[in-house]
């Protein structure tokens, strides 16, 4: 039988923990709703940007630009990896970071853009230096942070420092499900886009050429950073929505577990108390009986 004071201590510490987890749960509900509504309103933009770019790729012929070069085997690649700033979000960080690491293993010269405190720490402890770290960009993502990343990425790409760029983030798969995902940002490969469009749209576009105003080079050099910004911002928003909902469910189950544990501990505590009371009682009775025996 356990000591009554031990049980009391455990009950106290568990109920304190439960207070923290349930407070975090309440906060995460609000944050999650905000993030989800941002995600919903961003979804249209994210998808439209992708569609517009693939249309441009489809209808552009004879325009030479570095972004239309084909994917190089074993080239130098940049990875934007988005995790969260804080832990205690269930398997959220672990899933996306392990996925990112496995994806980066194959790259010859990976350049890392680490977003979020957890991401920076994860790669630092594995001796992978981040080229650019955005330690607090994932909690409340803003367009200007996304614009900064896209500007850096584009410069590296045009300057030949990298041959390709990927973004790794947690994607909303609907019905509360989420999974890590990798999307190629640069370069655009025509064959892939054509393939993708035939599958998704199912309709034949008559290939006709697009006009560029004022010139293709000028338009593309302004358009591509904006496309990157849109994609990165969308990924940041999705990732933050996933983070908050995953923290919500983690905290929810932690609170439930704590309650269950408390219930069984309380039972144990009562039992122990009862036992000691019974013990004391029987002691008193025995003592008094002994006393009577002596009197007689």
């Amino acid at each position, binding site marked *: 039988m356990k000591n009554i004071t031990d049980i009391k201590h455990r009950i106290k510490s568990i109920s304190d923990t439960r207070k923290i987890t349930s407070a975090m749960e309440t906060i995460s509900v609000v944050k999650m709703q905000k993030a989800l509504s941002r995600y919903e309103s961003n979804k249209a*933009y994210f998808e*439209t940007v992708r569609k517009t770019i693939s249309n*441009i790729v489809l209808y552009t012929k004879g325009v030479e630009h570095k972004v239309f070069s084909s994917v190089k085997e074993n080239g130098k690649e940049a990875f934007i990896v988005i995790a969260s700033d804080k832990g205690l979000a269930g398997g959220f960080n672990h899933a996306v970071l392990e996925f990112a690491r496995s994806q980066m293993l194959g790259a010859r010269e990976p350049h890392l853009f680490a977003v979020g405190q957890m991401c920076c720490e994860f790669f630092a402890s594995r001796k992978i230096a981040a080229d650019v770290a955005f330690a607090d960009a994932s909690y409340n993502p803003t367009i200007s942070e996304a614009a900064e990343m896209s500007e850096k990425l584009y410069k590296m790409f045009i300057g030949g420092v990298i041959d390709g760029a990927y973004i790794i983030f947690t994607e909303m798969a609907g019905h509360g499900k989420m999974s890590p995902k990798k999307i190629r940002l640069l370069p655009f490969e025509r064959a892939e886009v054509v393939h993708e469009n035939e599958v998704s749209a199912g309709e034949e576009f008559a290939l006709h050429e*697009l006009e*560029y105003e*004022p010139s293709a080079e*000028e338009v593309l050099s302004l*358009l591509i950073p904006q496309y990157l910004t849109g994609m990165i*911002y969308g990924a940041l928003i999705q990732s933050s929505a996933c983070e908050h909902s995953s923290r919500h469910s983690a905290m929810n189950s932690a609170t439930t577990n704590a309650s269950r544990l408390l219930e069984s501990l309380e039972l144990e505590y009562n039992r122990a108390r009862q036992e000691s009371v019974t013990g004391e009682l029987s002691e008193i009775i025995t003592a008094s009986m002994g006393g009577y025996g002596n009197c007689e």
Partner: protein
Amino acid sequence: MGETEEKSFKLNIVTPEREFFSGEVQSLVVNTVSGEMGILYRTLPLVTVLQSGIMKIRRNGRWMEAANSDGFVSVLKDGVTVLTQSCEWPHEIDADIIDKEICELQERERKAKSAYEYKMAKAQLAAQFAKLKLKNKSD
């Protein structure tokens, strides 16, 4: 003047924060890097860069105006898509907030540490001025 029935086309204006506009319109005038451009039904497919300014949309014979920041316009056979960082109707614009923003941005422009920061502040300033212009126009 006997105005004939004008053909309309599908227009989509999307920003990262929301789907700003979606519907059939008869005409669209936007600011591009090479000046104002009017888009009508069956304009040749083209892609162009949008500049901060006031965008005009004609729907059912009525002109509507909105302030937009930079982005791009793609005119395709099946419709026109405008992608911009932000877009607002005149009634959504608050002059006081913009005044504050402008002060802040001018400060940032002065203190810019790199060409990139300077460029960013300048572009955002242009967007705020466009908003202010539209607000003053509609009041």
